[in-house]
């Protein structure tokens, strides 16, 4: 296909603004595929994705479209991850496109993550087609959202499409505009090969499959290639495109999007953002700066049953083959036994990994309180990376502590500003800036929508911040964040003692002035979730040797089968067997039986 007839584009949308529905509709209209086939072939790639309404891994579908003027086009729709945890992947996906369809919900308007992604698109000179979706809904306000798009992003109402991805209204016009407005790819077929990897995943049969956008030259089946960033050398075992199922081809040329099967064993050797070229020779300059995604959030991951350690290791290694941004190192805890300290891109990434480990590998896991990586300068001058509270040095040896800060951006109706500013303050946010976005109507009143900018320690964001933000704005506020770098901090380690035994898994690093408040909340929660034992169990929170909060769980007094006669014996014994099985599922802290849920609930605590 002639390069001039190719259009590479993606869809940018906030969660639930209708990206997947629009993708379905575009595939149906531009690619002439029925809905059943779409569900079966396009969307059914990862159960978790559909359940959470988010897209974890980018996908690309090739569509053959004949426009109204009768010209044949080749459209490549590249799907993007919608969540801020995966912003690096988003940026690489955007680089693979010449244009983006920006979807905004007609009932909600611009959200924080939409802004973040649209700025990346503008940075890379993508042609953006703004679309207001869900105009069929009763609460939709297309005019208001149109004004907002104009005032915040500068797109005129005449450029903006009003559609309903659900009913299909306006989508045909949108496809026409995609062909007209988005330029064809600019690469040069005669230059040495350069192809950008915008996604990769591991396949048991074919090894790593890399999703690529060929920018210059030609990718040939069977050719020897090299990755400019990682230095990996490999042979192109198979290549092709998705239409929507994988369709093998002999070559992919400048402007085209497709996949290559590499036979590599791990996606770490073939990461998103790297540039493919031929070897020997080939291009020298990568298409875009290649960096390794850095874990931002760390947590200990342990099997509930110590026997499952080997299975956990195997599962994490397998998952890592597919998810290079997941890091892991063996770790052991006196209470939890053998496990791993894992690094994640963010909390959502953590949730997804844990859920996949449990669901796909049938493991039962205990996850410790998530934290960040601290840089601790010792009085000796040595600098330590601390990712686990257990490794936090004695305060007397610490000269300086630094922790990562983030810039956060919250888009909210103005009537929640007061409440949200309080939340920010509670979570150690530092005010930077307010920006007025436009008019809106919600809760029966007309008001302003604003974007608040704050800076805050990433640590503060890791527990209940997001829930608070949502609840105090009645769900209206949206959040985006980006890393600012490390700043000096004043922090202490809060230890939790259960029956006088220190439980590493509950330790956390906090500002000293919050010790009492957090300590109290932790012991109160533990009292709620640890069942009464055969003896009294003191629960304490301590900073060094100083107890900052205490609760006692009183001893259990009654647990006995009142009746046990002839007809009951088997049935009653089965109840006892159940009780015995239940005990096995408990984690022991000394002699105290602690259910797995206790760890989860402490992890979720602010």
């Amino acid at each position, binding site marked *: 296909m002639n390069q001039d007839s190719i259009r590479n584009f993606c869809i940018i949308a906030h969660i639930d603004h209708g990206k997947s529905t629009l993708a379905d509709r575009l595939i149906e209209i531009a690619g002439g595929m029925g809905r059943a086939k779409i569900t079966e072939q396009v969307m059914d790639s990862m159960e978790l994705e559909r359940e959470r309404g988010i897209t974890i891994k980018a996908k690309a579908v090739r569509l053959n479209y004949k426009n109204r003027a009768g010209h044949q086009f080749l459209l490549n729709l590249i799907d993007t991850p919608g969540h801020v945890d995966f912003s690096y992947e988003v940026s690489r996906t955007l680089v693979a496109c010449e244009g983006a369809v920006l979807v905004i919900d007609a009932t909600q308007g611009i959200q924080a993550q939409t802004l973040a992604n649209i700025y990346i698109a503008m940075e890379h000179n993508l042609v953006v087609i703004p679309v207001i979706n869900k105009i069929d809904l009763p609460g939709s306000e297309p005019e208001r959202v149109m004004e907002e798009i104009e005032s915040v992003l500068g797109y005129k109402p005449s450029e903006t499409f009003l559609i309903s991805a659900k009913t299909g209204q306006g989508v045909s016009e949108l496809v026409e505009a995609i062909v007209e407005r988005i330029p064809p790819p600019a690469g040069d077929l005669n230059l040495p090969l350069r192809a950008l990897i915008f996604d990769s995943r591991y396949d048991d049969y074919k090894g790593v499959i890399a999703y690529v956008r060929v920018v210059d030259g030609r990718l040939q089946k069977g050719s020897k290639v090299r990755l400019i960033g990682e230095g990996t050398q490999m042979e192109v075992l198979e290549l092709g495109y998705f239409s929507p199922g994988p369709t093998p081809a002999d070559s992919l040329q400048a402007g085209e999007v497709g996949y290559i099967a590499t036979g590599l064993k791990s996606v770490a050797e073939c990461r998103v953002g790297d540039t493919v070229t031929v070897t020997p020779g080939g291009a020298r300059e990568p298409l875009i700066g290649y960096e390794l995604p850095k874990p931002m959030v760390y947590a200990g991951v342990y099997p509930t049953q110590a026997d499952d350690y080997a299975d956990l290791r195997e599962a994490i290694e397998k998952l890592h083959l597919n998810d290079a941004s997941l890091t892991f190192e063996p770790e052991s805890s006196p209470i939890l036994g053998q496990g791993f300290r894992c690094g994640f891109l963010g909390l959502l990434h953590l949730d997804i990994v844990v859920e996949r480990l449990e669901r796909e590998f049938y493991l039962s896991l205990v996850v410790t309180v998530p934290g960040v990586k601290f840089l601790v300068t010792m009085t000796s001058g040595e600098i330590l990376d601390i990712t686990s509270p257990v490794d936090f040095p004695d305060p007397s040896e610490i000269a300086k502590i630094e922790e990562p800060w983030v810039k956060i951006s919250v888009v909210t109706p103005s009537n929640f500003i007061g409440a949200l500013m309080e939340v920010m303050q509670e979570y150690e946010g530092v005010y930077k800036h307010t920006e007025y976005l436009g008019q809106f109507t919600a809760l029966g009143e007309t008001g302003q929508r604003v974007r608040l900018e704050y800076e805050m320690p990433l640590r503060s964001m890791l527990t209940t911040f997001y829930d608070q933000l949502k609840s105090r704005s009645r769900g209206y506020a949206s959040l985006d964040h980006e890393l600012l770098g490390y700043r000096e901090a004043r922090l202490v380690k809060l230890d939790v003692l259960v029956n006088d035994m220190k439980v590493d898994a509950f330790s956390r690093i906090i500002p000293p002035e919050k010790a009492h408040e957090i300590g109290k909340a932790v012991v109160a929660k533990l009292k709620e979730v640890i069942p009464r034992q055969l003896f009294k169990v003191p629960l304490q929170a301590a900073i060094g040797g100083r107890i900052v909060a205490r609760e006692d769980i009183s001893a*259990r*007094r009654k647990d*006995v089968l009142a009746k*046990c*006669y*002839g007809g009951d014996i*088997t049935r009653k014994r089965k109840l*006892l067997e159940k009780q015995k099985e239940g005990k096995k599922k408990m984690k022991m802290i000394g002699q105290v039986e602690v259910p797995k849920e206790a760890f989860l609930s402490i992890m979720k605590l602010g």
Partner: protein
Amino acid sequence: MNGSIALYVHIPFCIQKCSYCSFVSYAGRQNDIEQYCQVLIKEIRRRVGKRLVKCVYFGGGTPSLIPIRCIENLMEKILSISQSLDIEVSLEANPGTIGVQHLKELRRIGVNRLSIGAQSLDNRDLELMGRLHNSAAVIEAMKSARSARFDNINLDLIYGIPGQSISSWKQTLEGAIDLEPEHLSLYGLSLESGTEMMNLIECGALPQINPDDSADQYEFAEEILAGKGYHHYEISNWAKAGYECIHNLVYWKHEEYIGVGAGACSYLGGHRFSNTPSLDKYLTSFTEEGGEVTESDEPINPELAAAEAAILSLRLDEGINIEKYNQDYNTNLISVYNKQIDELESYGLLENDGVNIKLTPKGRLLGNEVFWRFLPEAIE
């Protein structure tokens, strides 16, 4: 006593189902009583065979609903195969279902122990539990039983009822003691899902059972009954000297028994098996030739039998007699359960005087924590 057996006869009929009940019982099926009793006789003939019967227990349901004529037929059959004529014959009766005349007849045909399902002497509790009687009916039943010359009477009482105060329990208990029964069974209310009362608790219409209140009520009962000369011989049972229930002791001593009737359970020849709980199935399919009515049949291997025996013996005040246990089960209790016994002693739930191992007063309230530790390691 060798070769003799305890016989349990289940009477699954009630006028109305109580709100906490999860037993096999049917309301509104009184028309089937006569036929049911005929089937019972067939089952007794088949199951008991040539064995001698050493005690009988009519449980329910509401055995006092059965017409005398039917019980008499059953008793004739049973006494013809019993080892002697003065065996313990217990019958459960609900207040309000038994008049003096009826009781006299029962006494005449050989019933010599009456277990009255009083449950409470507080009308609020009785109403809440869906009982058809009030406290006056309990007192009346007791009087009638005495005038029918019953001299071995048990009262069933329930504590730990949602909303039951310690003082209400105290009144019930003292009221019961004033009636001078020979035997008292005190049951902490435990609810199974699906019962009416559990549904009320789950939907918030009733408060949860507070285990600490139940513990207080139990400890109060232990104290007051000890002072009145009642011997606390099993976790939930108290008796004047010599009035311990012979039939129920069979269960706790892990001896063999035969149960007849719908849902009834037997322990015989290393198996524990039970009849179908369905009244219809029971009525139609049981024949002398052995029509299949078995609901479940569990082989109790020697290891399991030894574990069950330990658990059941611990319910009794004398606990496990180490030497006898070792002989009976060809094992060594202390070495098998060494770790468990040490742990439970350290929690103050068990005591070992070298001859017997038994629950402490604290252990009686936390019996399950003791019992599950005595279960065998691998159970299929």
